[in-house]
């Protein structure tokens, strides 16, 4: 799972750090060697790593170790602080033009995910009450315009296209004209993928920019990009002056060091991250959380926020109480499964839970088919059984297996998993509470 390697490496090295008082040079140097290696393996650019390591070393050597922390935790804290600072502290949003329409222009290399991201962004903006229109300016790639139409259909957004025989800049101009009549207040321009060294095609983008003055020029970058990310980002930025970055495919298992590199060399904010193939899988990018995710702490805050988006507040409070007091029942579990289905796949949520990265919960890996089976089993329980799982004796389990078309082993497994989940969720809820009070603890040092 994402970032597991870095977390483990740091953990290994830092475990050796002992003693108290001040961090000494030798210990810090040793830890920094690992940090350097891990960052390089995470695809953070070589130069960025070098700067980062020297900055952290300077800060760490001679640093007082806080009373509540071990030296190892203290180093992690410094690394985390610096990483957070490098990523940027605050979340950046799309800026809307004070004089509509807002024009968002998407640019990037081939295969980065621009067209899909256009659709996701349109959906996101629709939820904010906007009326976006997608503008088809990829006149080169076969069926790119068709793809944009399909994507737009999926999110029920408008499309403007003049086919593939008109110059992109003219398509854009006509689109603005069209939008003023159709009442679309945001234009999202899908451009063709291009290499940053292709002067002719880079000039095409510049021409569009000079003619239509986009509100936001967004670079779409594949989060799996390696060392070349800095060259790409720098070139696009120098040519066009970027306003922001969207990372795609972050639901993969890349460590995503490119994010760090791009931020470091362009200082442009990463605004969104693509987290899956569904149109709703675009999330605001939280730079501070990305830093903690790099350190393997999971993304607790994201998880909580995501859950809150989809579960109404009162229900959430009830649930939190139930979880904490371990009154969480199969009834709630079923409810949760249905909520989770709304939110996206379970594995995606599991990814964000701290400690899950550590690999010790590997056996709990869930796929979406599994959820269907679990649902069938719970639905075959009586209301009483759902509320009081302790009454589930052998004959009841047999009946449930029969009713749900599964085996008794399946049923046993679900009940066991449920108990585990219940425990885990309690810990999780407690931790969430601590974090809200600012007592952030590092899960892997418990």
């Amino acid at each position: 799972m994402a970032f597991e390697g870095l977390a483990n490496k740091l953990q290994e090295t830092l475990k050796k750090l002992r003693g108290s008082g001040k961090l000494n040079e030798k210990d810090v140097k040793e830890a920094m060697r690992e940090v350097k290696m891990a960052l390089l393996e995470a695809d953070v650019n070589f130069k960025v790593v070098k700067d980062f390591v020297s900055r952290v070393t300077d800060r760490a050597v001679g640093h007082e170790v806080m009373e509540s922390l071990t030296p190892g935790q203290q180093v992690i804290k410094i690394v985390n602080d610096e990483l957070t600072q490098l990523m940027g502290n605050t979340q950046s949003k799309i800026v809307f033009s004070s004089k509509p329409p807002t024009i968002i222009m998407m640019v990037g290399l081939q295969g980065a995910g621009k067209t899909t991201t256009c659709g996701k962004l349109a959906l996101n903006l629709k939820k904010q009450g906007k009326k976006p229109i997608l503008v088809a300016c990829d006149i080169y790639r076969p069926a790119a315009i068709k793809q944009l139409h399909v994507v737009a259909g999926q999110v029920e957004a408008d499309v403007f296209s003049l086919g593939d025989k008109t110059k992109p800049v003219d398509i854009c101009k006509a689109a603005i004209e069209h939008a003023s009549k159709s009442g679309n207040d945001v234009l999202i321009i899908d451009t063709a993928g291009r290499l940053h060294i292709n002067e002719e095609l880079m000039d095409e983008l510049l021409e569009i920019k000079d003619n239509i003055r986009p509100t936001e020029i967004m670079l779409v970058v594949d989060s799996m990009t390696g060392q070349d990310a800095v060259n790409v980002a720098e070139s696009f930025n120098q040519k066009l002056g970027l306003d922001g970055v969207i990372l795609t495919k972050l639901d993969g298992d890349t460590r995503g060091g490119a994010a760090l590199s791009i931020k470091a060399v362009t200082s442009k904010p990463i605004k969104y991250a693509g987290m899956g193939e569904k149109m709703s899988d675009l999330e605001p990018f939280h730079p501070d959380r990305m830093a903690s995710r790099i350190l393997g702490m999971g993304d607790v805050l994201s998880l909580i926020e995501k859950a809150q988006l989809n579960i109404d507040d009162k229900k959430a409070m009830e649930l939190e109480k139930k979880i904490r007091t371990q009154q969480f029942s199969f009834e709630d579990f079923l409810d949760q499964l249905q909520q989770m289905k709304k939110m996206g796949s379970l594995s995606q949520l599991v990814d964000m839970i701290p400690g899950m990265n550590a690999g010790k919960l590997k056996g709990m890996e869930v796929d979406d088919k599994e959820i269907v089976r679990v649902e069938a089993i719970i639905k075959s329980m009586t209301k009483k059984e759902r509320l009081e799982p302790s009454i589930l004796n052998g004959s009841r389990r047999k009946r449930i297996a029969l009713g749900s078309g599964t085996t008794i082993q399946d049923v046993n497994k679900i009940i066991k998993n449920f108990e585990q989940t219940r425990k885990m969720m309690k810990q999780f809820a407690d931790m969430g509470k601590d974090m809200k009070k600012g007592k952030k603890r590092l899960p892997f040092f418990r």
Partner: protein
Amino acid sequence: MADLFKKLKDGLFKTRNNITDRINSVLSSFKTIDEDLFDELEEILITSDVGVETTMKLLEGIKKEVKEQKINDPKAVIELLKQEVLRVMSKDVAPVSNEYPQIIVLIGVNGVGKTTSVGKIANRYKQAGKKVLIAAADTFRAAAIEQLEVWSNRVGADIIKHQEGADPAAIIFDAISAAKSRKTDVIICDTAGRLHNKKNLMEELKKIFRIIDREYPEAHREVYLVLDATTGQNAIIQAKVFKEAADITGIVLTKLDGTAKGGIVIAIKSELNVPVRLVGVGEKIDDLQDFDPVDFANAIFPE
């Protein structure tokens, strides 16, 4: 053939220039071989996406030789590096098969260039006088089928397709039946992009290969993992995980016409022994070349 060679070289021009310029400038600034030199070489390899582990391995080997052979000319180090890369890239690589009928399946993560490469590969076999059939088994991505249809028209090859959302294994099944009755030489299959950490999608891939096992055992099979040269260290994980779901026989390395150094293939060959077979150097139909380890090593470290 000379033309092909030139194209590959052009495609790799950026790689070569970048790396060599830097190596040369490094070498001229060092009188003798010391740790600083190796630090600089490390930087060059790392920034080429070779990866920490493989870089260390390469440099360890060279350090040893420098010591054993008592080399004290920094310029001789470049020759050693080149030889080492060449050795890694060509070790145990069998020639490409020319048995027919053949079925070629392209797999990989989203956006790496699978569909484009299917078109380019189909064109190659067609040009060589083979009867080619294209199978549109990416039924997931919006307009993927239309994209491939454009390529099949460009190439002038038949295409087997169903509607969007259809079962990819069913398309492969139909393609095989069609190939048998039409006496097709080569089926080339496009598949949906999938992130290797999505378990259900990897299962879908296994299903495709089960169909081929069952319906077309007589055909020679090639499974190409398509990798984007811009990808960093995740490419190694991709290769590892895809290898578990499919017997990958080679790699198609795309987008080498950019500035990405493509050093990742050294790591993949070194760690997993999967050879690179083809190289994508642009978006046009003939922007596809054989991967030749000698050319590759020469292009990275020229005389």
